[in-house]
């Protein structure tokens, strides 16, 4: 297959614009060949470069005294939790692949986020996920929902990491554009943490894990484009996951991370070998000389372009001190993992590629990467017109229901409120015997063996509130996450986030993005929960519909005494039921209006962040002093639903409640 001649036209087909193509000519001082064009276009895609979002993400608070890694610097965030231990955690999206092939799309999403965490040297101890679909009344939505859940379960259960929590939301704005965000949390001793760097001229660059095939090529650029009819026939580019190989890679990587001769490790996610070689080199200013003939291949006749862009799953890249290659090989052989020495670290700062004895690529690493020479844009933003003609609501228009029981049943059976046990019973949430509180509560609680402490983890998002008022919605997303963590007795530590939005080149969408980040930032300041990194997923729209702007927050909190974990259900008759905070009877954007009247109206409820912080601190104090038996967050469905859940969730018996 002779390689196509590189022109501006071909560059545009790769998602690059004219200025970007001219920059490439300037950087290389010549026209790039087909492989080089592929490499640069995938590294400068939205998915890898964050070119339309990094400028704003930098405004989020990213420092904190217990942060051990600068946001974005490593594969995942790293937070000190005392006892010489640290927590590594991150959330990532696999929305577009899941829209095309839900089972494998979701499964490979779990595989990718697990690798981000264990390549830091951290043992994954819990996974969560945040899922959004169109209404289950539609057959296609049911197909996507059923297969995404099965994909997450089959992969996570096989690898042996418990799926301990999450959320599922249904709304017609997600028809055709499901959101599949997967989060993983891991624990690592400080002296076992591993960085994603290459260093030391002459050290060996080794690939290990599954062989490389043609799956997922353009996965990175594909994630940066709207789902059009044209992207339909790119389907063979779907990646297939092998959880059995992942489990062997997990154990081999953790063994490797304890060895002094390992310089760095990075997992292969979007853009596969291209991303690993360039990012690991750019972080230290070194280069790599790589022989593509040495890459274990699953298919014949793969050209350099395909090898460099392939997104085959379950592969890792590591740099091993020269002379210790055999030592590392012992670990790969113990776990029956194919491996191959691809080449050496150099001091040129360039990634140089060889194939069939010929040089087929020579590009400067720094110019490819986020934080290096990758483009950074400040998009234009404009207040959306829809915000001005949002239907307001007048309480009089919504008379009190004649039959409260009937209204109550409608609320409790609404898909966004009804029990999700059908979902989480397909997830193994008890493996590793650490689960103190599993799915279904306000937040998951996982104990840390060898200490008497535990982690409180929650994942929350609210597209409706951000749609109605992006800034207030951003604040509420963080506040809700912190409130859930506090309800189980956890002190919020830090967050990761997955920002699911539409097309950034649409000024109205970019306004939603900018305002939501501003809201999130102010809330993170108040709750002292810095952002440790995360993921941006744009282009969540298709020709006929666009998703609600949906930031999803993954928060980790610390519980000092695992015997003081709080649960949401009542435990004793004649206990008093008490509201902390104020009830304003605000129906703006509420599930009540949606469930009863199929209406979205009003503004997002106000939130006084200082007051919210004091409520949470008072709650943690009450839990610490053992003066309360249960605590539950009042969220979707309001007070009625919160009290009902507290009555029915006690595993031993049912309770009632007498409310005045």
């Amino acid at each position: 297959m002779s390689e196509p001649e590189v022109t501006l036209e071909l560059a545009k087909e790769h998602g690059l614009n004219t200025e970007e193509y001219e920059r490439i000519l300037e950087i290389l001082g010549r026209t790039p060949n087909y492989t080089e064009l592929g490499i640069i276009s995938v590294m400068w895609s939205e998915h890898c470069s964050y070119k339309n979002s990094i400028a704003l993400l930098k405004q989020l608070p990213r420092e904190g005294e217990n942060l051990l890694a600068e946001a974005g610097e490593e594969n995942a965030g790293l937070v000190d939790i005392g006892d010489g231990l640290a927590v590594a955690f991150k959330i990532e999206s696999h929305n577009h692949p899941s829209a095309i092939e839900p089972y494998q799309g979701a499964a490979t999403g779990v595989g990718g986020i697990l690798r981000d965490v264990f390549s830091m040297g951290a043992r994954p101890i819990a996974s969560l996920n945040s899922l959004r679909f169109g209404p289950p009344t539609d057959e296609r939505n049911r197909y996507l929902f059923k297969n995404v859940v099965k994909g997450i379960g089959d992969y996570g259960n096989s690898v042996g990491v418990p799926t301990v929590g999450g959320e599922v939301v249904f709304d017609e704005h997600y028809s055709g554009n499901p959101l599949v965000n997967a989060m993983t949390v891991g624990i690592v001793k400080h002296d076992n943490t591993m960085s994603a760097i290459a260093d030391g001229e002459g050290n060996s660059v080794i690939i290990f894990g599954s062989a490389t095939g043609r799956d997922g090529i353009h996965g990175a650029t594909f994630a940066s484009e709207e789902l059009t009819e044209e992207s339909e026939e790119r389907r063979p580019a779907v990646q297939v996951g092998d959880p059995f190989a992942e489990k062997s890679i997990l154990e081999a990587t953790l063994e490797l991370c304890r060895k002094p001769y390992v310089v760095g490790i990075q997992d292969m996610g979007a853009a596969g070998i291209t991303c690993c070689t360039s990012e690991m080199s750019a972080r230290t200013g070194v280069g790599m000389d790589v022989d593509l003939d040495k890459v274990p291949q699953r298919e014949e006749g793969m050209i350099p372009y395909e090898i460099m862009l392939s997104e085959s799953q379950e592969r890792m890249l590591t740099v091993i001190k020269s002379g210790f290659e055999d030592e590392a090989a012992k670990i790969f052989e113990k776990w029956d993992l194919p491996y191959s020495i691809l080449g050496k670290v150099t001091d040129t700062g360039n990634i140089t590629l060889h194939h069939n004895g010929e040089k087929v690529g020579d590009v400067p690493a720094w110019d490819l990467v986020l934080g290096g020479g990758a483009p950074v844009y400040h998009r234009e933003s404009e207040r959306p017109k829809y915000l001005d003609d949002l239907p307001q609501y007048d309480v009089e228009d919504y008379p009190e229901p004649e039959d409260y029981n009937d209204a109550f049943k409608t609320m409790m059976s609404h898909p966004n409120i009804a029990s999700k046990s059908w979902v989480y019973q397909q997830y193994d949430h008890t493996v590793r015997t650490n689960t103190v509180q599993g799915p279904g509560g306000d937040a998951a609680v996982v104990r840390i063996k060898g200490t008497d402490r535990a982690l409180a983890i929650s994942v929350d998002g609210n597209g409706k509130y951000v749609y109605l008022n992006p800034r207030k919605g951003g604040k509420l997303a963080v506040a809700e996450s912190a409130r859930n963590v506090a309800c189980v007795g956890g002190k919020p530590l830090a967050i990761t986030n997955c920002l699911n939005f539409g097309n950034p080149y649409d000024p109205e969408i970019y306004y939603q993005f900018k305002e939501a980040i501003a809201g999130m930032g102010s809330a993170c300041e108040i709750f002292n929960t810095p952002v440790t990194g995360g993921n941006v997923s744009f282009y969540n729209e298709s020709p006929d519909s666009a998703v609600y702007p949906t930031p999803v927050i993954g928060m980790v909190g610390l519980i000092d005494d695992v015997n003081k974990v709080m649960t949401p259900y009542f435990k004793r008759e004649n206990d008093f039921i008490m509201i902390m905070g104020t009830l304003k009877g605000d129906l703006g954007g509420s599930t009540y209006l949606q469930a009863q009247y199929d209406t979205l109206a009003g503004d997002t409820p106000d939130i006084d962040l200082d007051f919210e912080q004091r409520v949470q601190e008072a709650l943690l104090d009450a839990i610490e002093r053992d003066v309360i038996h249960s605590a539950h967050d009042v969220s979707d469905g309001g007070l009625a639903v919160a009290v009902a859940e507290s009555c029915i969730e006690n595993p031993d018996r049912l309770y009632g409640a007498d409310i005045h």
Partner: protein
Amino acid sequence: MKALVTVHYKQGILDPQGKAVQNALKSLGVDGVSEARVGRHIVLQFPEMSKSDAEAQTKKACEKILANPVIEDYEYEMVENTA
């Protein structure tokens, strides 16, 4: 009349089960296997139907549900019920 439908991953798509079976066979002393691929085998019984009608229904079943067009190919064979 019955339909014997076989469904396999498309060429080039990773088949983890096939890989595992191939390794297991090697360790069990079954030689000469260069490749193993694992897929589904579905038997549909059409008691009172002509071959052509049954074949039409089988084709419809394959396209609608038995195979996932994104990553799988299917084949089918119509067979007289001997028993």
